């Protein structure tokens, strides 16, 4: 760092103030990044991290905020993302921004298609894309449509898109939230390589270990203000958390000994064929059960079939499947989510944008969507009761929103995730499926959500939790199942489970 600190910052924000209706998202934030430096930006959900980088990348055009941006010490005005791209600023946004129904290759070159006299040269484009993807160290068909990829792969396509051009500043907003362990390592290696090449990197993440692994400096934001900016060496985990949350956080997973009751859900010999490759099985002969008052963690790599497994149970299987589902001993047929909900199940899906929420509707409408019945008499909604219980949910989950009428889309990513969870908790379900429940949620809120889940479990709810974060699985679950390539390969109780044992059967 010594020779670098003598240099001048490549990108600098000065006294940025940004206001949205009802919230001041940024309140006089200054921030700078030097070439060859990885500068991590951390803070609670809604602290203003995404807003800051949207300003640095021209998403919010010059004039919509107060304060200045300097590039190489010269003031610049960015009116669109194109302006920032021209300066060599590449961004991977928190919310995936790929076009779903075109191929990976086309997405990578979106807006910069390789053309000869206006005619796209697909062959060249695809071969270039392949090169970029190969550099990332993953195997991926650049000619397949983006919709066919899981969230993790899509995230890597975003990375590839950002890497297409020689970039001088790379900004990553929670790039690893959707990635599995080994994908994370690939990404971190790429980032380090770029840094070695002299690029400046701004890195946002809620995974603090990861931040310490790569950051040279760390800035903590809270409520739109900078708490501190210091070299990574002078921080430690506790200090960062305290700066973020404003208090000490002792215990992420409150270890409550649950006393499992009767069997709530039993799955017998569940098998499913791959809808795209006939003859290949996606899930094979899976049997397990969950008890009332128990948290069952399901571990495994991305694509192992975890999401598909709970999809089958919840009535949204992508293909035909066989097997039996019993709820409290009785065999049930679940044809669609409505059946599943009637049977007392709830599902928080992994992709909140596509499946979890109606982003253009209000917080209120989203929260009450599932349990609207409870506020209805004869099909007419009792607004009072609805507002009342939604307000309670907002309070309990700590959803940061100016009001219940706020459009869901304008909440910060983490707060959207809390909403996706909250809409199911309005009336306590009997069996709760969580697919990556704390993706993109800050440490404080994560502890809060796990406390809530723990409480509900203690009251007799059965929880099935899929997560790619091993610490989360290990910390929260009473029992852990491991799935590999559609097969059940291991089962551990809380006391016997360790990271190594799980990885061994998962890989």
């Amino acid at each position: 760092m010594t020779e670098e600190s003598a240099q001048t910052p490549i990108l600098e924000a000065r006294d940025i103030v940004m206001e949205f209706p009802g919230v001041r998202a940024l309140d006089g934030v200054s921030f700078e990044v030097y070439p060859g430096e990885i500068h991590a930006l951390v803070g609670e959900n809604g602290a203003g991290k995404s807003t800051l980088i949207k300003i640095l990348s021209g998403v919010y055009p010059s004039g919509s905020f107060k304060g200045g941006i300097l590039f190489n010490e010269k003031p610049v005005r960015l009116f669109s993302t194109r302006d920032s791209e021209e300066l060599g600023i590449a961004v991977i946004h928190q919310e995936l921004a790929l076009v779903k129904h075109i191929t990976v290759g086309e997405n990578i070159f979106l807006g910069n298609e390789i053309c000869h006299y206006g005619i796209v040269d697909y062959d060249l484009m695809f071969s270039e894309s392949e090169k970029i993807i190969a550099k990332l160290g993953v195997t991926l068909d650049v000619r397949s449509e983006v919709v066919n990829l899981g969230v993790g792969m899509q995230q890597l396509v975003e990375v590839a898109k950002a890497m297409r051009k020689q970039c001088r500043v790379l900004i990553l907003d929670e790039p690893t939230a959707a990635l599995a362990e080994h994908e994370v390592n690939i990404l971190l290696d790429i980032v380090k390589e770029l840094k070695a090449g002299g690029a400046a990197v701004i890195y946002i993440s809620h995974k603090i270990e990861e931040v310490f692994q790569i950051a040279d400096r760390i800035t903590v934001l809270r409520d739109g203000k900078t708490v501190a900016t210091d070299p990574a060496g002078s921080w430690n985990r506790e200090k960062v958390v305290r700066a973020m949350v404003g208090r000490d956080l002792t215990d992420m997973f409150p270890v409550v000994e649950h006393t499992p009751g009767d069997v709530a859900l039993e799955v017998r010999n569940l098998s499913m064929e791959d809808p795209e490759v006939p003859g290949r099985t996606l899930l094979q002969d899976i049997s397990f059960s969950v008890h009332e008052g128990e948290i069952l963690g399901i571990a495994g790599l991305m694509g192992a079939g975890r999401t598909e497994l709970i999809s089958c149970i919840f009535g949204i299987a992508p293909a035909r499947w066989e097997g039996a589902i019993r709820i409290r001993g009785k065999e049930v047929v679940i044809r669609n989510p409505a059946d599943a909900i009637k049977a007392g199940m709830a599902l928080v899906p992994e992709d909140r944008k596509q499946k979890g929420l109606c982003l253009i509707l209000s917080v209120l409408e989203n929260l009450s969507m599932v349990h609207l019945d409870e506020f209805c008499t004869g099909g007419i909604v009792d607004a009072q009761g609805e507002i009342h219980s939604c307000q309670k949910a907002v309070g309990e989950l700590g959803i940061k929103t100016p009001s219940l009428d706020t459009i869901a889309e304008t909440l910060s990513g983490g707060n959207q995730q809390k909403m996706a969870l909250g809409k199911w908790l309005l009336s306590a379900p009997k069996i709760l499926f969580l697919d990556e429940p704390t993706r993109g949620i800050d440490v404080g809120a994560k502890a809060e959500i796990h406390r809530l889940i723990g409480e509900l479990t203690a009251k007799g709810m059965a929880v099935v939790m899929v997560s790619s974060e091993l610490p989360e699985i290990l910390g929260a679950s009473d029992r852990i199942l491991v799935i590999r390539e559609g097969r059940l390969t291991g089962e551990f109780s809380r006391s016997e489970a360790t990271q190594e044992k799980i990885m061994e059967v998962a890989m």
Partner: protein
Amino acid sequence: MVFILIAMWLFFRWRVGDFYFSGESIAKLSRDMATWTILAAGMTLVIVSGNIDLSVGSLLALVVGTGAFLIAPEEGMGISAGWAILIALLLGALIGVYQGFLVSYFRIPAFIVTLAGMFIFRGLTQKVSAKDPRVPDDCCVNVLGFSYVPPLASWILGVISCVILASLFLYGYKRRKQLGLDAGKPVFVAGKILLPSLAILGFVYKVNQYRGIPAQTLVMLLVMILMYFIAKHTKFGRHVYAIGGNPEAARLSGINVEKTTILVFGFMGFLTGIAGLVWMAQNQGATQKAGEWYELYAIAACVIGGTSLMGGRGSVFGSLLGALVMATVIQGMDYTGLQNWMQLVVRGGVLAIAVGIDVATKNPAPWMKRLQRTLFKRNG
């Protein structure tokens, strides 16, 4: 939107003269818009649910044709008006349900289903209305077309609706306060009560100078109120917004997307039936050209009123305002005696401009923002 409307009224007042604001002219405006404004109410739900219905004009013609054919003693069958009305309404609703069925269970895009319907129903209309069946003068259907609520009763209706409106708003205000929600400034609430009340009373005052509230206008207003309520305050209405906002998330939340879609189209068909009866009454019979362009008027009214063609956003009240804009343009140009081709051009122009202004105020393109800022700086 309201400003556009007032500007247009003033403009036509200037072009047309005193007659434009007379009771007769206003009553006529409200009568002429009744049919396709009823369609616009249903269309709002259809568009909010993420669909579109291009067939309503033709379906209206078919309903009118069938109804008139059943009633007409000479050209048709001459059965009693009561049965004919029932059959006509049922026909509309069933066809709506059937189209919804094709859209939801067969996954044929609504655009295509209803485009096909537009041709099919028009074709059938040409058959049933081939002889232009006429409804006899003494038929009870004609009440819808030619009678008026007497002035005194009109006043009572007007005052009652103002009182209801005021108490609803005040109640809502109080409750939001109680719940600690943002209730808005008292000034705004007062404005929200006063402006519509003024509009209602003004309207009643004016039409009373003529003959009272026209029956079809009353039907239209009742339909609008009903649909407003359904959209905002029922479970079904909320589901419509949800499936328009994100069908996938709606389904995962246990909403029966297929059933809701079918119901939406069913409502649309039923309202088309009602609009058809009004049309039949107004014209005392059917023609092959009944309801031409109506689907486009209805869609235009919705869009001018702020309903998003992408689904998930819109309100019935907005569509009523949008319909007023459309009606004002249509009527105003009749008065100015422009040639037909010019009228069409102006109609299209107004549609584009009205939506353009709406978008510019709600969600301006970057260049507009920049322009606004530079203009603003110069002034301040």
